[in-house]
């Protein structure tokens, strides 16, 4: 088996701040994803990466950057945190059409 870890678990930022979320997986999966989860809005795709050094924009990429320097890791940067923003960011990888999710990073912007 494998596991996906996300750091930090909780992230508190200030308006306008640049914030970075990290994800690591030891499944050895090629493709990884970042989703944003908001109540009542489902899971919205921010970025995905088919393989190392590949980046593909999702439906919600504006305001975010991503980086995939190694197969096992996928980082997401909030380029300018929005005041009163609250959301959970989920990282995932995929194998045989099944997505495996990490525990999430909960973001609060003051």
């Amino acid at each position, binding site marked *: 088996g494998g596991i996906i870890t996300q750091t930090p678990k909780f992230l508190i930022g200030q308006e306008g701040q640049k914030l970075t979320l990290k994800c690591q997986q030891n499944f050895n999966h090629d*493709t990884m*994803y970042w*989703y944003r989860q908001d109540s*009542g*809005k*489902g*899971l*919205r*795709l921010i970025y*995905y990466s*088919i393989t190392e050094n590949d980046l*593909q924009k*999702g439906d919600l990429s504006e305001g975010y950057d991503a980086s995939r320097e190694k197969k096992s890791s996928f980082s997401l940067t909030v380029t300018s945190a929005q005041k009163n923003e609250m959301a959970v960011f*989920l990282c995932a990888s*995929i194998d045989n*059409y*099944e*997505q*495996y*999710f*990490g*525990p*999430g990073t909960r973001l609060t912007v003051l």
Partner: protein
Amino acid sequence: GDSVTQTEGLVTLTEGLPVMLNCTYQTIYSNPFLFWYVQHLNESPRLLLKSFTDNKRTEHQGFHATLHKSSSSFHLQKSSAQLSDSALYYCALGGGYKLTFGTGTSLLVDP
């Protein structure tokens, strides 16, 4: 683009009654994959069911769903709800590397 519609935001029912959560989709793919993911409180989503075969019933953990391409539907059903089924359920559509998720249906099962 692709879209998934889950019409119920919240479904509340009594333990022992049947469950049906609706899911319809729109896609350009002629052979889409359909999924149901379940997310219990304070947990991450995990796969419950998947299907890519038209008109074939797929089952797991007491839940079942049948992909109907003619009506673009993939409804989730269970004959008898249990308290432990209370969770958030997402229907999702895949046809390539991307999955498109619906907005989710919260199922609350009362004793």
